[in-house]
């Protein structure tokens, strides 16, 4: 966001140029202006504060609950102390000295196996945090890549030759992988030759005109991909894949990420389509700057505002999805606690031990709410239309 271009545009757009013809830079940068706007939104500020607190708690939580002898032991079973309400004192008579909880008190009570809910919540906060960030990180990477391709190279045509090349290379690698060395090598060599042929001048491949037959543009391909993904009911798809794969937190992160990049792709594509026509991109082209540098140094920073907003809200959705999966029993494998599976285990004791439902439930609610409010606040603060109206 500190790209110089972004600071220059409002000065030109506002027409704040003084009589002398010299264009004066605005007193405040866009970042400062957005921040001032953001700070006025009390709900969004509260969201940000909760977000920071949650971040710190999650980091401290993972430090205190992992290792060989963790400070808070989330897995310590004390059957004689089960289903104690929050703030209950541990009875020192019944417990071994190494079973006594660190604080002597069960801050948030114990569950049906006598495990300390407070330690388990600490352990689970890290899962929620990483699932949210990693899943959204994957989604954003895919989104920026595909959206950028569609927005920048959208007019490029995909030709018959390209598809043939992909088929040959793919078939070759598949054949190599399944042990048919000769066939695989032949296909791979053919495919590589085709790559060379296609990258060379048009006149070279004039002998094979069918290879140059235009099929569809890159834009059509990527928009089609987005449309295909949007046809799947997302939670059902995630549930299916998670259930088929071996249970692991990394699978869940990857799957949530791989099924939620469509929004980011659309935003980046739309931004790129408008940025592509701007003067600073033309200027950069005229200076002979390479495409990659134009994309990453000049266009991506300017296209990130809507992506950040959707990322913040995406983290909230990812946390909810992970909690839902854990609740259905498809989450992280059992000894490890997550907010979803604490709630899921506690649901059988809903009338006798309501804290097992309410503690994780409220934690998820507060964190997700914070992310949503923060994201909406960002959206308003980064929206140029609102800034002008002020």
């Amino acid at each position: 966001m500190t790209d110089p271009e972004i600071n220059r545009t409002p000065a030109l757009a506002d027409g704040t140029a003084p009589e002398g013809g010299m264009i004066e830079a605005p007193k405040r940068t866009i970042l400062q202006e957005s921040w001032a706007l953001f700070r006025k939104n009390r709900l969004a500020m509260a969201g940000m504060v909760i977000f920071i607190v949650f971040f710190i708690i999650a980091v401290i939580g993972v430090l205190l609950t992992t290792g060989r002898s963790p400070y808070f032991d989330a897995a310590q079973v004390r059957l004689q102390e089960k289903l104690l309400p929050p703030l209950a004192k541990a009875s020192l008579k019944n417990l071994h000295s190494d079973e006594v909880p660190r604080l002597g008190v069960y801050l948030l009570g114990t569950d049906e196996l006598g495990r300390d809910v407070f330690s388990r919540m600490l352990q689970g906060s890290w899962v929620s945090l990483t699932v949210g960030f990693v899943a959204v990180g994957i989604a954003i990477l895919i989104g920026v890549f595909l959206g950028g391709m569609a927005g920048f190279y959208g007019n490029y045509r995909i030709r018959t030759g390209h598809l043939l090349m992909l088929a040959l290379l793919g078939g070759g690698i598949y054949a190599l992988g399944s042990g048919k060395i000769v066939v695989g090598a032949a296909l791979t060599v053919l495919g590589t030759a085709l790559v060379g042929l296609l990258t060379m001048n048009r006149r070279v491949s004039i002998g094979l005109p069918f290879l140059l037959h235009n099929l569809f543009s890159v834009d059509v391909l990527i928009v089609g991909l987005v449309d295909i993904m949007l046809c799947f009911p997302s939670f059902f798809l995630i549930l299916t894949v998670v259930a088929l794969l071996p249970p692991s937190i990394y699978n869940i992160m990857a799957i949530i990420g791989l099924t939620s990049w469509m929004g980011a792709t659309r935003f980046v594509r739309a931004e790129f389509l408008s940025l592509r026509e701007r003067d600073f991109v033309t200027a950069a082209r005229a200076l002979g700057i390479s495409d990659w540098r134009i994309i990453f140094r000049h266009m991506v920073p300017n296209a990130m505002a809507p992506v950040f907003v959707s990322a913040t809200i995406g983290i909230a959705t990812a946390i909810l999805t992970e909690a839902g999966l854990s609740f259905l029993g498809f989450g992280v494998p059992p000894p490890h606690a997550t907010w979803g599976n604490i709630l899921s285990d506690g649901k059988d004791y809903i009338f006798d031990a309501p804290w097992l439902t309410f503690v994780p439930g409220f934690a998820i609610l507060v964190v997700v709410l914070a992310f949503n409010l923060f994201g909406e606040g960002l959206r308003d603060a980064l929206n140029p239309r609102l800034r002008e109206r002020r």
Partner: protein
Amino acid sequence: MLAFLGRSAIQKLITLFFVSVVSFLVIHLAPGEPSQINPLNPKFTQEVLDRYRKEFHLDQPLQIQYLYFYRDLFSGKSVSWVDNRPVLEKILERTLNSLPLFILGTLITWTLSFPIGIRAAIQRGGLYDRTTTFFAYLLISIPGFFFAYILIILVVREFHVSVIGMDTFGLSAEGWAPPLMDRLWHMLLPSVLGAAGGIAVLSRYVRNQMLEVENQDYVRTAKAKGLSADKVHYKHALRNALLPFVTMFGLILPGLIGGSVIIESIFSWPGMGRLAYEAILARDYPVILADNFISAILVLVGTFISDLLYMVVDPRIRL
């Protein structure tokens, strides 16, 4: 117009084809296969396994399996691997169970969202607006299963009615009224839960649409010429703000076969979401794939209808 219809239909058919391929690949390329679902069962000898795999074409290459599956699906012969019943019959039966929840939920959503959104927009920045905004965020953020348990505790403690399942087990009251009331109580919570997110999103959308229209020149003109506030808001502004909502009738179509997995699991409601969940657990590929395929069709038909409606209600749009 006709050209648009044709182009759009072809485009959607291509998308549907790729959806069918992708969902087929996702399911079949995942590690493990249905014949391994219970490896410890002593009755599953190698011969039984081989017969099983042959019966369901699992020994064939993927592309052949794909053709077999969609041939069976289109000719209605596809059967569930769990109980050998036709897939479409199973899905229809469960969809009919989910339908009342969907209808009640949609009614609640649409009847509540509009008044809330319109009032929030008219009193922009006021106490009502801020309160509903906050509650909308709250409803979006609350995990459905947590909200479900709060409501269950509330209803069971306060009203002493049972809410799990479709009917109270062993209810033997005279007449038609008690069973009906019982069914309504059982429907209420899942429907409200299904509607909660919808109310939050839709009421915000109504509010934003109203605000957009209230800033237009013709609304200012209407105010300036001295019309009453009601007339300005409801005749001049609201009618124009309603435009995008007509198209949303197309977008609720996929909900017909949706059915929430989590909510139906909590309430033991034998609907579509439960069927999908059971099918996933049992690796019942035909049911999973058929469900996926039908919901993809509904999504595509829904967007098609909404494009059409947009063209009908808004003469400015020419595709």
